[in-house]
């Protein structure tokens, strides 16, 4: 079919490779490339760069979005940022964000890698492997509102399934409000986030494991290397670049996490799970303090962009 269409076109004289011809051709190629890129560039400029500029601008003025008749909008320098850093809720939300994100990434890596290794073992046949893989990926496919609804139900205080099960194996958890107590809320939120997110990690790890040569593993097995040694000396060096890249991406995403915490606890109890994204949201849309919220949004953006540089670098290491 391809040949037919090519043949049906009128013959074009072979291009003369003079300097002018080359330049004209490369100019044409540049124009074509940018034409193909134009929808993406338009979206990037209109819906990312300009809004980002706007939010940065908001963070340096006295009020935004809401109207304050009689008071002109003007630049206030670092006022909004100074205000943020004097707000204990903001400072605590920075720590909560770090705790939440780092713990989530660590457990995503642990579970994602662990499950990928289990799935990759030779114990399973092809069909069983596919079945287990599908089952273990399932939680990732559900939207976060469903995940949250489900766990809020399972973790209910007097009649919850989790408390019932833990109690029946002899743990004194009866009456423990997992999401309602300051000492358990953060761990519980992290647990739900880990449950909902590890499969994405696992998929990448699984793809990485496919690249580890089986022969190399077998050779070291005959040499008497045990499973742990084999993993450390053969498998891990191969997986490491992928794992590093995934960890940075996951860290970026978890530092920005809004929906899980907003829906599970709303940042409570007593701000104990209030993360930066949730702080930004409440400051903007409950307190109507859009300029302070813009400042907090810019801080999340800045952290994300710094990490993005490392992410791009780790990807380049992968491509090599």
């Amino acid at each position: 079919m391809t040949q037919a269409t090519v043949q049906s076109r009128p013959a074009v004289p072979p291009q003369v490779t003079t300097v002018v011809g080359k330049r004209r051709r490369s100019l044409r190629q540049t124009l074509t490339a940018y034409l193909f890129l134009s929808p993406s560039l338009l979206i990037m400029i209109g819906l990312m760069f300009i809004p980002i500029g706007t939010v940065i601008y908001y963070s340096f003025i006295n009020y935004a979005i809401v109207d304050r008749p009689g008071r002109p909008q003007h630049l206030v320098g670092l006022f909004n940022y100074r205000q943020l850093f004097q707000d204990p809720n903001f400072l605590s939300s920075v720590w909560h964000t770090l705790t939440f994100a780092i713990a989530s990434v660590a457990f995503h890596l642990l579970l994602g890698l662990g499950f990928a290794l289990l799935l990759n073992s030779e114990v399973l046949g092809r069909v069983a492997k596919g079945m287990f893989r599908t089952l273990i990926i399932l939680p990732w496919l559900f939207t976060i509102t469903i995940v949250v609804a489900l766990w809020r139900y399972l973790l209910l205080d007097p009649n919850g399934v989790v408390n019932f099960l833990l109690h029946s194996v002899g743990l004194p958890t009866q009456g423990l409000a997992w999401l309602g107590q300051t000492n358990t809320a953060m761990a519980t939120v992290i647990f739900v986030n880990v449950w909902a997110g590890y499969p994405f990690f696992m998929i990448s790890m699984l793809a990485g494991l496919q690249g580890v040569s089986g022969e190399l593993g077998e050779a070291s097995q005959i040499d008497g290397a045990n499973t742990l040694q084999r993993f450390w000396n053969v498998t891990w060096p191969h997986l490491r670049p992928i794992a590093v890249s995934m960890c940075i991406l996951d860290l970026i995403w978890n530092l920005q996490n809004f929906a899980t915490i907003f829906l599970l606890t709303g940042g409570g109890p007593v701000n104990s799970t209030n993360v930066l994204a949730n702080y930004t949201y409440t400051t903007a849309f409950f307190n109507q303090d859009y300029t302070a919220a813009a400042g907090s949004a810019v801080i999340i953006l800045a952290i994300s962009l710094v990490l993005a540089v490392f992410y791009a670098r780790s990807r380049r290491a992968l491509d090599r």
Partner: protein
Amino acid sequence: MTTTTAEASKRVEATPAARRARRSNRVVKFWTALGLLVSAAFAVLPLLWMFLSSLKPNTEILKNPPSLFTSLSSFSAYKHLFNDPSQLDAFRDSYIIAITVTLLTIIIAVCAGFALSRCDFPGKPVVTTVVIGVQSVPPISLVIPYLGLMTTLGLYDSYTGLILTHIVLTFPYAIVMMTAYFDTLPRTLDEAARMDGASSLRILWQILLPISLPGVVSVGVYTFMLSWNEFLFALMLTKQNVRTVPIRISLFIGQNAVDWQGMFAMSIIGSVPVLLLFLAFQRYFLGGLTAGSVKG
């Protein structure tokens, strides 16, 4: 491996190291099987519980001790769902938005992926880096200016507004995936056509695209999933005219006496599109997804 063959081979090469390796091999097998069962249970049991709960009346759902299989006879929540316009409207809105976002994202990503994979032009490294970089822009930082922007443009609480913002979330990853896919196709294909004077659009449309279907499918499935599941923009940029499934489900949580059965029924039906797409295209999808993050 049967016992007799195992014992026979044991006699043949009964060096201590080989014996140790074999014994540890059997131990490893046992723990692997156990580990797999535990991980599958960890993933699936909560979801199974949700499904069973959608078939129980609320009084049963909240019974202590919890009952697993008793009285799974109540389909009332599903019946109610299909008779409740506010729930059905959420499905209509989610379908319209997710399908439009998917189609537009595919077009955008195929075009951009072609340029980044097949053309040499000044600024290419910059564009590539920026596309990878914008994956990290936090939605929470965009939502404040979007509120102003959408109100100004008159797109607040409209399909167009939500579709545009969803594309912002989906297009960077889609471009990365599509570029990676095009990179796996041999360049000789399009060079031959170019020699014969075919235009870039023709090369893309008639030569590359037909053999890129697996890549396009995986981009499509992932995009549909992201858009169908999106929460923050739907929460902030829509109100009454447009209400997606995740938002409608979250409204159940806000009520004083939560209608658990109704919520779970809607959650199950609300997950069907993504589950079906995933099951149907799992192989393409997982391959394409990792092409973006894991190369080679």
